[in-house]
């Protein structure tokens, strides 16, 4: 097995690096820059049952080392995603993780059932943590009981493994992880954005039309890392981690914290080639450090796993 190959429920990844949902569309735009088959996987944009326009603009604002977004789950709807976006992606040798969203549990069930049958969808990422929509989204992601119920129902109808995407906007991320583990989740993906806001200092009004938005980027990395560190010690579920990843050292940090794979969000906007570059550099640095497999580093922030997993030089 190669140094970077990672096996997860439903997924055989060439490497543990993938674009995060909503930061990569359905891949078309980035295919202008590189061959998408280089990626470990692709987490595509959230899909809902119906087509959605999303929130009014402005939808993004910059903050110190971060950005706020309130796209509001704009997407062309389940049917279009199945017939066009996922179909188009079939030309690449890369597993797709479909991000599922909705306003009601039934919405989630319906999308999960249908989209999990697409041939290149190898896993679902259930988005119970979108801070930018009025109904559903984060409401499911901050109450353990609702999250458990949703997980159970989605699991029942899905033909592929189910990863639940956790919200960081909670008092105890571990409690949420326990709840979805009980609900039968196959894995976790974490974290979604932190709820934040920016004001125009002159007018005093919110810069984003939706008023609040989700904070992503390097600013949130310390929070994401801490949450992965906590949760990975408490559950046996594999974790796909995200939050501020922009280089190979960030990937190593999240794996050291306990993640099995890592997603790159905001950094794609800064550098469209960031994912393949991370993959290349990651391989090089592991070689330099004489680490046989990326998972030799997994959880070393809290596990005592001996010299092998440390930097040798």
């Amino acid at each position, binding site marked *: 097995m190669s140094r970077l190959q990672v096996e997860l429920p439903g997924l055989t990844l060439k490497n543990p690096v993938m674009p995060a949902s909503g930061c990569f*569309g359905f891949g078309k*735009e980035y295919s*202008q820059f590189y061959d998408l088959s280089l990626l470990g996987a692709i987490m595509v*944009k959230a899909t809902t049952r119906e087509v959605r326009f999303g929130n009014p603009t402005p939808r*993004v604002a*910059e903050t110190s080392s971060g*950005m706020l977004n309130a*796209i509001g789950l704009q997407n062309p709807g389940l049917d279009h995603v199945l017939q066009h976006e996922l179909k188009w992606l079939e030309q690449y040798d890369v597993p797709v993780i479909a991000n599922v969203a909705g306003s009601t549990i039934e919405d989630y069930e319906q999308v999960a059932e249908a989209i999990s049958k697409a041939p290149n969808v190898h896993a679902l990422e259930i988005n119970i943590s979108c801070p930018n929509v009025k109904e559903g989204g984060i409401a499911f992601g901050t109450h353990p009981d609702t999250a458990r119920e949703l997980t159970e129902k989605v699991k029942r109808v899905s033909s592929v493994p189910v990863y639940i995407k956790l919200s960081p906007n909670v008092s105890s991320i571990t409690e949420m992880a326990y709840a979805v583990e009980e609900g039968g989740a196959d894995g976790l993906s974490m974290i979604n954005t932190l709820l934040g806001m920016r004001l125009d200092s002159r007018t005093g009004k919110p810069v984003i039309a939706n008023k609040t938005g989700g904070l992503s980027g*390097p600013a949130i990395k310390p929070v994401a890392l801490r949450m992965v560190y906590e949760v990975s010690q408490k559950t046996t579920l594999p974790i796909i981690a995200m939050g501020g990843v922009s280089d190979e050292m960030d990937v190593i940090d999240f794996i050291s914290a306990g993640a099995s794979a890592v997603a790159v969000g905001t950094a794609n906007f800064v550098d*469209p080639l960031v994912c393949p570059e991370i993959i290349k550099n990651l391989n090089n640095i592991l070689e330099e450090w004489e680490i046989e497999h990326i998972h030799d580093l997994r959880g070393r922030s809290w596990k005592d796993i001996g010299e092998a997993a440390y930097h040798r030089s």
Partner: protein
Amino acid sequence: MIGQENMKIVSHQEIAANIFELVLEGELTKKMTSPGQFVHLKVTSGNDPLLRRPISICSINQEMNQFTMLYRVSGNGTKVLSERAPGAVVHVLGPLGNGFPDDYLKEGEQALLIGGGIGVPPLYELSKRLVHKGVHVTHILGFQTESDMFYKNEFEKLGETHIATADGTHGVKGFVTDVAEQLSIQPDAYFTCGPSPMLKAVESKYETINGFISMEQRMGCGIGACLACVCHVAGDESGLKYKKVCSDGPVFKSGEVVI
């Protein structure tokens, strides 16, 4: 094709109050073909500012492998940019989006170019090309006040140029549409870039002729992936259709999108 390059600053100067002219050099220039396209700049390494900044291409010099941008210092990113000295490099992603068509009008036809404030720059390369094709150009340029004004001479060299300032310190007191009211020429098409209220006013004033309108919107990716920059499609009653300013625009045909 979109490219990426660390481009060298060959000149960088303040040409009006808070307005900077930045000339970059590098191979990426070769890809720049259409006036009205923009580039996405990483103003400095490091995470603050984090995102790129969209800036229009103002003029292209293929022989020298250089292109020029004009920008206004408005927030933190442009402030940091303005402090970068010649010799330093700026990371450029581009050219992005679809620009103004320079073949819509034929030789001898009349073009009206209307720019407001920092919307003026992309019209410069456009005007040069139209003139080169033998199209007659008339410019109306609007600014807040005289000290904000830039490139008046440059535009005058290309064709008739009218200035409007909101406070009357130069040219006509008022807006670009006030100048338009008084124009005797009958344009065959208009080309405009500036703040939305101006674009709206221009579109409704010239309802009967075709125009090309460059839109602005806050951006994330700049390449069509993040859906930060969408606008509604004109006449779409479902409210579900959209265009992306970054990749479908920034230039749209008049009547195509909701300004």
